[in-house]
């Protein structure tokens, strides 16, 4: 069992979630059928609903960013770590 680290960057109009190349390789090794993306941007027209981890939006991006659904993740991954380099904050979430 293991952890996957996702980088979160808050921008003016939404969030960008990204994976480092080594993390993408790691996911591909763990799930050979997966197609992890480099980054996914979730845009908002308004600033409302911007509270990332309150909204549960992180779970919505698993399939698009990681290329793996939640059930598959649960079997092989302990934690998903969301790291925000702007704040230095790391949030650990169970998949």
């Amino acid at each position: 069992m293991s952890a996957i680290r996702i980088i979160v960057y808050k921008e003016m109009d939404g969030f960008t979630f990204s994976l480092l190349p080594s993390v993408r390789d790691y996911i591909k090794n763990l799930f050979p059928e997966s197609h992890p993306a480099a980054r996914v941007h979730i845009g908002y027209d308004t600033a409302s609903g911007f509270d990332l981890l309150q909204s549960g939006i992180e779970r919505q991006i698993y399939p698009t960013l990681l290329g793996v659904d939640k059930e598959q993740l649960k079997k092989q991954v302990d934690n998903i770590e969301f790291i925000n380099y702007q704040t230095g904050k790391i949030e650990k979430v169970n998949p």
Partner: protein
Amino acid sequence: MTKKFNHYLGKAGHLAIMSEFLIRGWNVAIPEVDIGDDIFVVEDENGTMKRVQVKTSSTTIRKNSYSAQYQIPLKQLQKISQSPVYYIFIARKDDTWTKPLIIPQVQLLDEFAKNNIGTQHKDYINLYFSYSENKVECSGQDFTKYIADYTDFPVIEH
């Protein structure tokens, strides 16, 4: 070498890289206000924009090689936003430019996080590149694959 000359060297490096993009068919722009990005590189047809950070250095001659030193702010490297950033490193040697090393931000961050390249000093990372015949290394990691790697900037026919 004076601090003033470094400004001239840096600007010359920017213009050399801008020239290279133009000859490849990409449009280029310098932001009016310096917000950290050196160059915007744009594919006019569809508006695809990539941000480029140019890092320029003079070189120090070694026995069978030469080296160049670059400094990048850590915060800048860690800021991964929706439009990708490319770091381009060039050095001046024998009155010519070296071939540029073109490294996507995520690759460089990965090299830093995974392979501990460079040395961190306060909020900056100092990178020492060693150039030998057809090979470039940084902190023991082979960076040769990044030499003139224009994969993400293919030639655009006009």
